């Protein structure tokens, strides 16, 4: 249930995210040693422009990517059609952007 525009949004967001996810995976494996604690996470992220930019970009792209992905799955598997499908796409996209934005602010600022 996607045309060429949503397709492009889906693939371009994927291309941006692939390297970001790779960085994230490396960070997870690096940071998980010896358990996680808030001070350790925050000392890495607070005030960092680079982490801030990466995470903001990730939140933006993942919101687009997940919204379109769930749109397709809901259409194919839950038989959602028409307005319902558009509403779902927007709610997922905007919801993730808001929640994600809040998370970025919390760990960076």
């Amino acid at each position, binding site marked *: 249930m996607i045309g060429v525009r949503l397709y492009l949004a889906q*693939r371009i967001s994927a291309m941006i995210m*692939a390297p970001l996810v790779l960085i994230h*995976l490396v960070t997870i494996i690096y940071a998980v040693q010896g*358990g996680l604690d808030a001070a350790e996470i925050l000392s890495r992220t607070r005030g960092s422009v680079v982490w801030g930019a990466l995470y903001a970009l990730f939140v933006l792209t993942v919101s687009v990517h*997940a919204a379109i*992905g769930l749109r397709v799955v809901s259409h194919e598997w839950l038989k959602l059609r028409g307005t319902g499908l558009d509403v779902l796409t927007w709610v997922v996209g905007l919801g*993730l952007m808001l929640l994600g934005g809040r998370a970025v*602010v919390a760990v960076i600022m």
Partner: protein
Amino acid sequence: MLKPHRHHPLWFAFIVHRLSGVCLALFLPAHFYVLGLALNNGESLDRFLHWTEHPLLRWVEFGLVFCLAVHMFGGVRLLALEFMPWSPKQKTFAALAAALSLLVACLFLLRAT
């Protein structure tokens, strides 16, 4: 579900990609919410992080790391399939994506325990 016409490796690659994607999309709001806890200075985040030290949760995290890795590596295969000249090695690439992801998830498990 597993009708006979679906019994081929690239259909399994498809279903792994889809299910991992759905899992990640469902996990993401929770992940963002928990990180947002750091807004009030790390204490509630810490409380949550302590709770996640339960050994059972290691396996849930293992699953999530695998989902993330396999969705990414599998996704790179699909991007290459769509945007680069056709390669007949799709099954090999899909197997490679699965193997790499398992490796990443195991590495995570080793470091986490």
